[in-house]
């Protein structure tokens, strides 16, 4: 099946070359950081010791976990519309897990020692469990996606032995995001992170952002290939995004209530810093409001049936949800827990250019994997013409 990845039109090779160039830039930026020290190449400090990269971990683990929103309705509830895109969801999970794992790897001050995590396994550390759950999830998604796609190519039903792995992947998916939430939710003295709602909130925002990305990717696939992921599938995803977004916004409201009704200063301060500024600092106020406005815009576009059904407005809504939650989780959440420093003050943080380039390198690696996997999947689906329910999955252009 891999041969499909080395045959392509010029635009495929231009895209692959572009991603490779970004990866190279990211690699140089990463080497530069390890040569000069992250003091000169990042915005991090002794107070804000985690920033942009750990934000990417948090966000993309969510995207990876959200594949379950396609796989679960298809395999457990026989939602046929998702039959065509189940593998699209699984391959998105693969590349998102790779981005997540790389985002943690690049922050390591001593990357050559990183295997100490397995050499000295430490079950009381959440990072240890994060590595375990992410590696397992990566493995089962490659296995399930590849096997089911292989069967589709041969136009035979998937082998029976794969079913337990698929069920396992469905059960395992939430664990990757729950464990990621536990990185934060059990830290004493970080009031912004210390909420029992953390894991639930992470899952809700993930199930909004991930399927939004799948909507956009499905639309792109339909535009750039002859494979049609299907209007019903896209509409089903839109409904999932709508409900998850409502829960996400509801959870933000819950945080506000607990902080401001209890009037406990440390619980209020981070929210004050983020939304109106505090102690003369308001660096992230425009950022968080951008996220809020995008979320509200998307909420209207998704709740109103006419704009949800219209694919142009749905595309706008999906982009708005994706960027709103990326700003919230990938940019603001992690750093704001540290910006409110342990000395009762504010230590501002803004990612440096080098940090951004390293992150761009990790995204490019993820997107390169995604491109190759999608190229293979789409080529097979174009060749097979009919999906397993006998419906035509290829557009006549």
């Amino acid at each position, binding site marked *: 099946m891999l041969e499909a990845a080395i045959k392509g039109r010029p635009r495929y090779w231009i895209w692959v070359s572009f991603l490779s160039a970004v990866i190279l830039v990211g690699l140089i930026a990463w080497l530069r950081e*390890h040569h000069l*020290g*992250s*003091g*000169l190449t990042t915005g*991090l*400090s*002794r*107070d804000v*010791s*985690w920033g942009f990269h750990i934000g990417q971990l948090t966000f993309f683990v969510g995207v990876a976990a959200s594949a379950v929103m396609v796989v679960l309705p298809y395999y457990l509830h026989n939602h046929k519309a998702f039959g065509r895109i189940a593998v699209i969801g699984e391959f998105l999970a693969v590349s998102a897990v790779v981005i997540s794992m790389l985002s*943690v790897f690049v*922050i*390591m*001050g*001593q*990357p050559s*020692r*990183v295997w*100490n*995590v397995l*050499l*000295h396994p*430490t079950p*009381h*550390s*959440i*990072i*240890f469990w994060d*590595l375990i759950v992410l590696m397992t999830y990566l493995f089962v998604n490659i296995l399930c996606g590849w096997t089911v796609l292989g069967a589709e190519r041969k136009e035979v039903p998937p082998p029976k032995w794969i079913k337990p792995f698929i069920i396992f992947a469905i059960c395992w998916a939430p664990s990757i995001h729950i464990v990621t939430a536990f*990185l*934060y939710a059990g*830290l*004493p*003295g*970080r009031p912004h992170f210390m909420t029992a709602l953390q894991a639930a909130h992470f899952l809700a925002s993930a199930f909004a952002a991930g399927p939004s990305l799948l909507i956009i990717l499905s639309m792109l696939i339909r535009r750039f290939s002859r494979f049609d992921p299907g209007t019903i599938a896209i509409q089903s995803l839109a409904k999932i995004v709508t409900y998850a977004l409502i829960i996400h916004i509801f959870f933000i409201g819950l945080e506000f209530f607990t902080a401001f009704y209890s009037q406990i200063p*440390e619980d209020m301060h981070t929210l004050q810093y983020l939304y109106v500024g505090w102690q003369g600092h308001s660096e992230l106020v425009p950022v968080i409001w951008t996220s809020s406005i995008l979320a509200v815009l998307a909420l209207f576009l998704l709740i109103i049936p006419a704009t949800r059904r219209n694919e142009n407005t749905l595309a706008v809504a999906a982009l708005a949800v994706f960027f709103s939650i990326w700003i919230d989780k990938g940019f603001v959440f992690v750093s704001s*827990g*540290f910006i409110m*420093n*342990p*000395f*009762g*003050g504010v*230590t501002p943080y803004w990612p440096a250019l080098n940090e951004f380039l390293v992150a761009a390198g990790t995204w490019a690696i993820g997107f390169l994997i995604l491109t190759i996997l999608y190229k293979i999947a789409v080529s097979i689906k174009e060749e097979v013409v009919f999906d397993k329910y006998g419906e035509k999955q290829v557009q006549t252009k």
Partner: protein
Amino acid sequence: MSMNRREFLKIAGASAILGFGGISAIDALEKVEGAQVLSELKALKAKRWAMIVDIKKFKTEEDYKKVINACNHIHNVPQIANPKHAVKWIWTDTYERTFPDLEYEYAPEEIKQKPFIMLCNHCDNPPCVRVCPVKATFKREDGIVMQDMHRCIGCKFCMAACPYGSRSYNFLPPRSYIKEENKEFPTRTLGVVEKCIFCYERLDKGLPPACVEASNGALIFGDLADPNSEVRKVLSANYVIRRKSELGTRPMVWYLI
């Protein structure tokens, strides 16, 4: 070296037995030997090391400097001017920043103006040890929270977990920021975390921590488990406070205000 089949099997068999039982035997042997080495040393020992900062005894700027410089010098602590990247083992800050959760507004002017000493609290229930994925930071039986700078992978999770800002990451090449190197203590490399280690290397030689020695009695150090120790006497005779004790970390550094 020639070896017949019989000899080879003998050695192989012995190695196999060693493989199963041998590791624990070597482990036990090392523990016995280690204990012997320690008993020959005139090491200071305790069940639970603890410190009291008697802030009233810090009067002049010189009192603070002596204590801090003693530590910085013997531990090759890099002197980085930018507070964002500073490496700090023992340092001073205001009362308000040392105790952000305590009453500040109507505190005596003297307290408001006075610098407070901060260092690793060597918590009895240390969150940094809980989160470290490689056991590079660990708690000794005598309560010292240690930092293995050679195992640390630089993930900075311990810095997220420490509610006291007592951990420093080497954001800049530390060796470029050491004026006078003490050859008896290792220097560090870029990308690892470090902190106060209660001078375990001096305790092994029977010496008190460097800061305590330089403090003229303003820093009191001793065994919390021993009712006759000086720390216990001071604790039972005075009103003392700890930083953020409500978090359940059980800090082993007390402040006598």
